């Protein structure tokens, strides 16, 4: 239900434009399917913090069923993936899960998510490509 509160990126072009045109803020894109359980939980969380982080992060949703263009490039094999971009650059983050490219697990605390976004934004402003997450998610490592 929360998925209607966040802007949807309908085509590959929209995704590209969202990443390319945003010059000030971090672009956060949730790739997944809106009926997936994990996606629904994450959408709920993202939509609840979207207003608060609007000054430094833009949050979008992208249905990989509708837009399969990025599946290969970003290896979108998980049911739910959150990726971060800053000024047309992919931001990596070390969550302790072994996959630094994306966030492919559920974060269940709003403040944790806000802290992650802030950390990535700080790193991005300092031209870093990889930042270390303020929290360790080793226990959420994909099996």
């Amino acid at each position: 239900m929360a998925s209607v509160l966040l802007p949807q990126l309908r085509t590959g072009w929209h995704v590209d434009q969202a990443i390319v045109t945003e010059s000030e803020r971090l672009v956060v894109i949730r790739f997944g399917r809106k009926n997936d359980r994990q996606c629904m939980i994450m959408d709920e969380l993202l939509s609840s913090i979207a207003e608060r982080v609007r000054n430094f992060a833009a949050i979008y949703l992208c249905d990989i069923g509708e837009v399969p263009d990025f599946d290969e490039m970003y290896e979108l094999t998980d049911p739910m993936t959150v990726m971060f971009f800053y000024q047309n650059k992919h931001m990596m983050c070390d969550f302790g899960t072994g996959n630094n490219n994306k966030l492919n697990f559920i974060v269940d605390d709003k403040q944790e998510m806000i802290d992650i976004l802030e950390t990535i934004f700080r790193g991005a402003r300092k031209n870093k490509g990889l930042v270390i997450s303020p929290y360790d998610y080793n226990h959420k490592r994909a099996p």
Partner: protein
Amino acid sequence: MSSEEDYFDDLDCDLADEINEEKQNIRAQKVTIVSDQPEQYNPFEILPKIINLFKKLTYQSTDGLSLSEISYILPKIADMKRIIQEEKLDFIKLLPSLNEIIPLIKKSIKLLHNFLILLYKERFPELSTLIPSPLQYSKVIILLEGEDWQKSEIDKLFPQLENIAHLSKEQVLVLTMSMRTSFKSKEPLNFQTRTQILETNTILENLWQIQADLEQYIASKISLIAPNMCFLVGSEVTAQLLAYAGGVLEFSRIPSCNIASIGKNKHLSHELHTLESGVRQEGYLFTTDLIQSFPVAIHKQMLRMLCAKVTLAARVDAGQRYDDKNTVLAQKWKAELLEKAKKLSEAPNIVDTKALPIPEDQPKKKRAGRKFRKYKEKFKLSHARQLQNRMEFGKQEQTILDSYGEEIGLGMSHSSLQKAVGAASDSRRSAGNQAKLTKVMKHRISEANQQADEYLMSLGDAEPSNIFLGVGQEHKKQRTKP
């Protein structure tokens, strides 16, 4: 009355002697009363008589009731009808009697209803629990007794039950279901009971009718006696409420929490009370415009608020005198209610969430300089502390126990190595991190010292003691070396 007489004609041949006598008595009484009416027609004389009659009737128990006693009622009903139709009568003078009569009529209806139940129990014991309304009960009895219903003909009964007895579809359904088991269609009533039942039915229906007429009559005149209530809930509901309570004063004594349930239908076991609005007390008040014209979601709150205001209005009406009744307060309350309803049905405000600030790392302001170095010195570890944190290689550390019994290592601060170089390091000890006295404190201490000196001087004018002097000098030393 004509129906009754038809009835009597039908019965003539078969009636038992006893009943015959009784009936003749009734007829005789009726005739006399009817003939009296035109001459002594004065409502204020007739009404008390009617009231007395009803009162006597209501003292009766159901078991001891007989047809002859009930039959007095019919002519009285005719009297009341005439009174209502009279235009010139003073309603306010009439109202107390009318108010007295209505509850009496209600009681009588109840009495007759119980009487009917008693009589009809043998034939259809479940009927009274299925149909709680006296009027419907009596109508259903008439329908059931009117013809000899066989099981195959029950289908024909449906439309009649709905049209004549005004039963709801569910009630009809439940009734027909229970007729199959509980109705003893093969054991007809004996003639005497049957007569009694049908007679009672007629009276009950007439009573019901006159009660409705009276209520309607009062409704048309009610705005005179309860203008504030009328303004809030309309004349019809006001009349119903007042008729229930028996007058404005009586109504004003009912607490507001009980008003909502006045006029509520009796609970039926097969009914469900799951309204969207959540209102269970669907009494007279629930039908008012002030509630029905608003969305279902706020019905419950509106009902509660309206109940409170109606009670207030009733108190005002009870307190005001007849000649200067006004609706100023009711107007105020109605406006208040409308205002509240408007606010209740408005959408809640959208709370504007404040965005977090952009997480920017500001460059540090202080980095170097004499002042900043001095500032940093304040937080530096003292030389002894630094040594305490160092360990000498290959030697056991000296420890002490503090007041809590905790062992504290002394590190290199007491080692021989330290003692060897102690003199040199001591000289390097900086004063930057020592506790500093504030200006005020310094001033205070110097003053205290001065006073002590003066005191000693005054003591030791003759013989100043060395010890005291020594103390004074120590003070001075401390002062000079903070």
